[in-house]
């Protein structure tokens, strides 16, 4: 390992911060909007969908895709910034 320890530690911390944010969104959309608060959200409509039902059967899946997209892009940047690629 030729990289200095400080750089590597900073890289790892940045990775953990990014992960924590993304996993928080992951939890809130799927378990929050799709399960825990689904009944309150169902009082609202999105076109012909009850809102909670839409999050459970459609919205959460789109959010999952976007989360991984953000992760892959941000990690590519982090790899470059910290010179670990």
């Amino acid at each position, binding site marked *: *390992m030729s*990289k200095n320890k400080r750089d*590597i530690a900073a*890289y*790892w911390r940045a*990775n953990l911060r990014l*992960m924590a944010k*993304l*996993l928080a969104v*992951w939890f809130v959309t*799927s*378990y929050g909007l*799709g*399960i*825990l608060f*689904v*009944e309150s959200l*169902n009082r609202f409509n*999105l*076109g*012909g*969908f*009850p809102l*909670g*039902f*839409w999050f*459970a*059967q*459609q919205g*959460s*899946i*789109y959010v*999952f*895709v976007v*989360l*991984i*997209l953000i*992760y*892959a892009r941000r*990690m*590519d940047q982090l*790899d470059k910034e910290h010179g*670990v*690629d």
Partner: protein
Amino acid sequence: MSVQTWTFIVIGGTFALYIGIALATRVNTTSGFYVAGRGVPPIANGMATAADWMSAASFISMAGLISFMGYTGTIYLMGWTGGYVLLALLLAPYLRKYGKFTTSEFVGDRYYSQTARVVAASCTLFISFTYIAGQMRGVGIVFSRFLEVDVSTGVIIGMALVFVYATLGGMRGITYTQVAQYCILIVAYLIPAIAVSYQMTGNPFPQLGFGARFVDGPNAGLFLLETIDVLHRELGFPEYTAAFVPGKKAMIDVFAITLALMAGTAGLPHVLIRFYTVPNARAARWSALWALVFISILYTTAPAVATFARVNMIETLNGVPYSEAPEWFNNWETTGLISFEDKNGDGAILYSGDAATNELTIDPDIMVLANPEIARLPAWVVALVAAGALAAALSTAAGLLLVIASTFSHDLGKSFLLPGLTEGRELLLARIAAGGSVIVAGYFGIYPPGFVAQVVAFAFGLAASSFFPILVLGVFSKRTTKEGAIAGMIAGILFTASYINYFRFIRPEAGADEWLFGISPEGIGAVGMLLNFALALIVSRFTAPPPEDVQRLVEEIRLPGEADNSM
């Protein structure tokens, strides 16, 4: 041309394609056999992972199950997609950086313990055999329904095919066949879904169509979902879109099952192994993204198919005199998947949520398989759906087979029982193991143990409660020790297995009020997982820290860099 002629042509054509790919991608090294020489581009690996992951159950059964469960079907939709977020963020890049060939190998190295590796290898074999039996059965059923050959003949044809391309091409052959299989299965799934969406709502996107209004018919101008809810109320079913009403699963159970399926997905060996085939950690992240994109295309369509099928089924059958039932009804009646019993003797079909008066019994599998006929689509579409279902079953079977083969030859053979194995011998052993597993899987396909359906819950529960926690801790907690990992794994497995065993086989009649916290056997893997995490962390605090070189290994896999995989 008849449906059957079309089916022969389409299935024959796809099989010829798979064999052609296998011949073009033959391998002669262990690296080629186990991990496709690590040269698979991220998009191709994404497609292969999608086909690997989406089994006969996803293709044939899922939409039908959702159409009976309504909101509760969310457990499959979120459970089987959300796991990819965990996989992408917590596991895929690190396992790829670690390199080598199998997941059990990582467990063995990270926890500096042959015992850990053997426990992991045994779990892998159990999970994979459970799963593969279901796939072979799926192959047999498609053959028997669409080509009118016997289930056993169907299984044997499927076995022969998988045998050829798995033993010849190993992971490389499997990868590129899976890419082709993904294309076939997704086209086969989308064409009828788009056609039905367009017919009913005028919107060609099924994802939007099931939230749209009927364009004509008796309900013209009304929203589809609203109409189903009304129909459900009239017939005595719980409302389709309602979440936790009586007659549906409770909130805690939906929560636990979703969690168990997500963690299970991220811990399934045949999914994890796919990420070993890409060139580096960066490619593993992108490949996880592509995998979920390709999976989402089917998974966001499935709830729409479920809704269309539900409306169609109720509208075309309920209250209709049996003598005037549509043609597809009679076609599928002969398979036993749908049946009518005239309880009140009025000659008309009565569909009701009340079991005492209900006269119509429907197997969920029919919803996808009969969809093209219900929507009066041309014969070639029916044939395509059959080919799609086969592609889904065969691709998953092949992926599982490779995991079984590499576990036997690499984890148990080379490292444990026969340490002196040369590469050529190991490769031969892998091919023999693949061949042997095809035969065992085929046997279970022809003579399915009565509990196949039940043990699928087992596979996910076990993956969630055994692999997932120790893999994650292996990367994110340097301090997790061998003792911690083994204690966690064993506790997780024992707890989950005994709970499932007790409520599935010993006291299947026990209801929700006897379940722990109201969690069904399907969801108990989530609790097993927490137990595993907790125990691994606690025991690690009280045992000697992992040796220097293991800590260095962890530091190293955390950095993406170009991995050195010269072995």
